[in-house]
């Protein structure tokens, strides 16, 4: 490829982010990836970094050992290379600068990525999620809500999907009139229907009310939403912005609903900050947690000053307010912010997830993202900086949504069919541009790009390796006893999501993963159930009758897809064959075998657990003795111990 000047550099050092450890290897630059291959043959680790994942490349000032290159990724990976020759470093640097700033959609990885599927498989992948079916599941259309074709040609609102659901009493003139009174034409439409109480969650953008403007059609529209719900005489209008921001918008001819003009609305500000505040907040957070030898005080002060958890709590509080209004009061709620595609998406999606157990399943969660984020025009391309480098448009709005779901899963470990690994994997691919789902800013743009014909769907990919993302303690009956989640929002329930923001920082993770362990056992249980059945069949041939086994899940003989290596899940899983062969060998067996040469096969180590990575103390003093090395350091590599 023309942008690559130096495809390969040898003797490159990769420095560990938090310790003094480093490894040497070869750096390869391909059209899609930056690859580092460790030279040490026994434990040769490979790091593959997709160009789209790279957020920034920095060339630091020259040192005696070479030219340092600092690469920060959107999936929170930070790598620090030292390249021996300055010229090579510069070549890599300038190639990367070009490669990570694609100028047209065609250059995105999704258009060249080919998972070896035929057209039919690709099509099936895209058909997995069907939003019409989803609205049907909610019970829409019904006697109060209907599908409107007003936006079939994207004429009323080009950032909305073609199919929209509105109250039956909302006529076309009302819709069109209302859309003219709403920012970007995003008029109130249905996003979730709570069948039990016939209450609706609707979304829109801010009204163009300025200081005094009003619009009868828009007022009718809200009236129609209110009338569609016989359970409540009023509807809530949630403006998810801080009041001050909404007030400021009035000067620009925008603003919020005047309660005097709309009958029977209860207006409420929620106070979630805007995309710029969120971007700054994450930046501060990452700066703090990226500090070497971080003290506890600096960590906690930094966590507080970043405001990150405060914002997460604000989103959660808003979603809880929404869920309560709908499920307890049976009132319909209209949610908006400024344009109705950031905070509105967060609150509607999270609120729905609190109300509807379906969204807490793997499939349901995909549907939820497809509905409230993709179809309603969350600007993924801009927010995730896919193409057009306007740094002011970038913001971790979707990341915050994923984190809120994680915080919920921490409080309700049995409520979700998926584990955090699923959330992290989605986050990874929102930024990877490897699949078509998140490309572009709106459905219209995606159709123009012909994504369904030219790229693959992430959902099909994730479903194909569903086994990896299962939450082993998920309980479908939990959904029956807790149809609506009522999380506590005490500040101490909100935690720093280490596995997301330190995903690639091996030394930070628990050294033995409960998730991985229990997941393995659960898979093994299924396998064993099958074995028991098979053995019983054999025994029956001998005329031995056995008591019937009552399997909790029907035994499945299907082999599992390979599990990706994940630091969060801990050491790579042994295949079950090995587990059965040597049942008494511990999980770290594989890692140990890698580390220890065959002659000293007794050496073992707990995965990722090493004294040197952790930097406990400064043992740099010298005894000045001839028996000892001049400087006593603790660079021993991975800690080992003979059993």
């Amino acid at each position, binding site marked *: 490829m023309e942008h690559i000047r130096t495809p390969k550099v040898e003797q490159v050092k990769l420095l560990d982010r938090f310790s003094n450890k480093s490894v040497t290897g070869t750096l390869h630059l391909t059209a899609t990836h930056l690859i580092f291959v460790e030279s040490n043959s026994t434990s040769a680790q490979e790091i593959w970094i997709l160009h789209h994942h790279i957020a920034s490349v920095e060339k630091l000032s020259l040192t005696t050992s070479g030219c340092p290159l600092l690469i920060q990724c959107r999936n929170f990976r930070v790598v620090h290379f030292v390249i021996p020759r300055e010229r090579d470093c510069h070549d890599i640097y300038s190639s990367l600068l070009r490669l990570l700033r694609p100028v047209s959609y065609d250059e995105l990885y999704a258009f060249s990525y080919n998972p070896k599927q035929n057209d039919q498989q690709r099509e099936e992948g895209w058909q997995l999620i069907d939003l019409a079916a989803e609205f049907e599941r909610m019970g829409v259309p019904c006697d109060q809500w209907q599908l409107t074709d007003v936006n079939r040609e994207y004429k009323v609102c080009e950032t909305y999907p073609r199919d929209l659901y509105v109250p039956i009493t909302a006529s076309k003139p009302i819709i069109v009139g209302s859309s003219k009174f709403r920012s970007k034409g995003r008029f109130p439409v249905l996003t979730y229907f709570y069948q039990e109480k016939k209450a609706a969650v609707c979304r829109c953008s801010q009204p163009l009310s300025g200081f005094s403007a009003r619009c009868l059609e828009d007022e009718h529209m809200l009236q129609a939403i209110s009338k569609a719900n016989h359970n409540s005489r009023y509807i809530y209008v949630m403006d998810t912005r801080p009041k001050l921001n909404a007030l400021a918008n009035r000067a620009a001819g925008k603003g919020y609903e005047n309660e005097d003009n709309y009958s029977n609305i209860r207006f409420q500000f929620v106070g979630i900050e805007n995309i710029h505040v969120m971007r700054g907040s994450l930046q501060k957070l990452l700066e703090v947690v990226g500090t070497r030898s971080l003290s506890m005080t600096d960590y906690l002060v930094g966590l507080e000053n970043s405001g990150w958890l405060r914002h997460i709590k604000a989103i959660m509080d808003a979603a809880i307010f929404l869920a309560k209004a709908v499920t307890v009061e049976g009132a319909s709620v209209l949610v908006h912010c400024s344009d109705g595609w950031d905070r509105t998406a967060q609150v509607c999606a999270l609120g729905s997830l609190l109300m509807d157990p379906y969204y807490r399943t793997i499939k349901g969660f995909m549907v939820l993202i497809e509905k409230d984020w993709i179809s309603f025009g969350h600007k993924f391309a801009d927010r995730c900086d896919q193409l057009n480098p306007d740094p002011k448009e970038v913001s971790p709005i979707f990341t915050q949504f994923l984190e809120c779901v994680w915080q919920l899963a921490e409080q309700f470990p049995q409520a979700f069919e998926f584990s955090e690994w699923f959330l992290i994997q989605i986050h990874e691919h929102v930024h990877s541009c490897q699949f078509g789902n998140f490309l572009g800013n709106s459905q219209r743009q995606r159709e123009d790009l012909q994504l369904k014909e030219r790229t693959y769907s992430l959902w099909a990919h994730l479903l194909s390796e569903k086994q990896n993302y299962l939450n082993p303690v998920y309980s479908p009956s939990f959904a029956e006893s807790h149809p609506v989640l009522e999380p506590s929002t005490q*500040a101490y329930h909100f935690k720093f999501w280490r596995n997301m923001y330190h995903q690639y920082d091996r030394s930070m993770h628990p050294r*033995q993963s409960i998730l991985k362990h229990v997941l393995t056992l659960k898979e093994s249980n299924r396998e064993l159930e099958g074995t028991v059945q098979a053995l019983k069949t054999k025994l029956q041939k001998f005329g031995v009758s056995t008591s019937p086994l009552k399997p909790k899940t029907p035994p499945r003989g299907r082999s599992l897809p390979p599990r990706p290596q994940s630091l969060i899940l801990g050491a790579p899983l042994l295949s079950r064959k090995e587990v059965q062969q040597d049942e008494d060998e511990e999980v770290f067996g594989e890692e140990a075998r890698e580390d220890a040469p065959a002659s000293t096969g007794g050496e073992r180590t707990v995965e990722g657990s090493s004294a040197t990575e952790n930097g406990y103390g400064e*043992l740099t003093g010298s005894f000045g003795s001839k028996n000892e090395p001049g400087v*006593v350091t603790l660079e021993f590599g991975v800690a080992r111990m003979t059993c």
Partner: protein
Amino acid sequence: MEFAELIKTPRVDGVVLHRPFMPTVEGTLCLTGHHLILSSRQDNTEELWLLHANIDSIEKRFIGSLGTIIVKCKDLRVIQLDIPGMEECLNIANSIEALSTLDSVSLMYPFFYRPLFEVIEDGWQLFVPEEAFKDLESMTDEWRLSEVNKDFSVCPSYPSLLTVPKDIDDESLCKAASFRHGGRFPVLSYYHKKNGMVMMRAAQPLTGTNGRRCKEDEKLINATLCAGKRGYIIDTRTIAVAQQAKARGGGFEQEANYPQWRRIHKAIERSNVLQESLIKLVEACNDQSHSMDRWLSKLEASNWQSNVKEILTTACLAAQCIDREGASVLVHGTEGTDSTLQVTSLAQIILDPACRTIRGFEALIEREWLQAGHPFQQRCAQSAYSNGKPRSEAPVFLLFLDCVWQILRQFPCSFQFNENFLIMLFEHTYASQFGTFLGNCVAERVKLQLSQKTVSLWSWVNRPQELERFLNPLYEPNNLVIWPSVAPQSLLLWEGVFLRWNRSTKCLDEAHQEMVHIIEYNKELQNKVNSLRRQLAQLETEDSPLQTP
């Protein structure tokens, strides 16, 4: 003294008990010499039995003739009792106050408690120094068991038997003792089987401002080094604090006198600072009105997590010196009864897989805390709600448990016990029906005749029916050294203790149950498969002669 003198109103009817996350209970309140009891007299409601010793402080409030007593316990629980009648309420409050602050140890509940179970294995006889020494003898012959402290005269806070280098005679030990704070001369704490390195502990040397030295002390610790080898002295105080100690007769080992040793200073806080830290932390955890910013800033201001990090880091450093550097280590702070023990005991958990079993952990507590002379009675006299002037209370042992919990979180499959075991130990150090944690050192326990007059905690815990609650279902023994991460992002607030009464754990408990269920079902299936295989193999061998005639 009769307890009855302190109880003016032994019972009140119509008392309402409020507890967070539990329904209120109305019933009869009774006071006995050692317990506060509330019973609704209905069959299926739980009774509240609270040891007076568990009460940290109380608050009284009156609205009309209805009195309210807020009882704050040492296990950090806060309960509220609504008592009709002003006089009754005052009487109850006064009695509780008096009964919960009795000074005499021999009036404590353990001396009155009679177990309802049969003591099969007496915990008092379970961990005797002779047994531990036998283990050591099987590995090395460099050490001997000295009786120099037989009558506790050389060092009042040490046990009567001490493990010391074989070549050092008792006379030298006495001289070394006179050079160390409280007579706590260097003794063996841990022998690392893998490479023969050792960890010793002591109190600070009494060098004073004029740099006193003691040949016997030097000889004693040098005797632990192999030829040509060097060692590390880990002083748990900062160099500044250690310098200041000289003015009060204390000090640290001068390089000139200990040329084979390198000194490292760490900064573990003194006990009074730790107590302050606990009070602030619990206050932060109990305030439900906090915004996110206020919570984080109060958590930070408490410094609790910093203390956890510092202690854990120091312990890791000691372990690193021993295992990675192949060097012996001497650990001390000032008295050698607090931070020193935190470090030596945690280092052993990191290095020695035996300490991660239930028996091994009990033995560790017995060895490194009880026999090593951690003053439990002083340190645990009051907990986070004490409002009086602190004397020598400090959550030194709680911090140790917190650090163990942090390691357990990072290595959830490496410990035979679970979090409940650690929480149980925390509770029993502050208030207990058992005598284990009474007194401040072995000498005091002997004098109190605890082993004859009270029941040992271990006698109760080690019964199979009790032990079950404390077993970690994920445990898979491994013989490895486990290096925890000490990055602040890896250290968590110990919710099981500090948020225990402030949150509902129903969902978490159910999830845990499900996990246990998966693990047990797996074992069941494995057994089933094995038995079926055996059955099949048997049939096949029986069958084969028939098929091949």
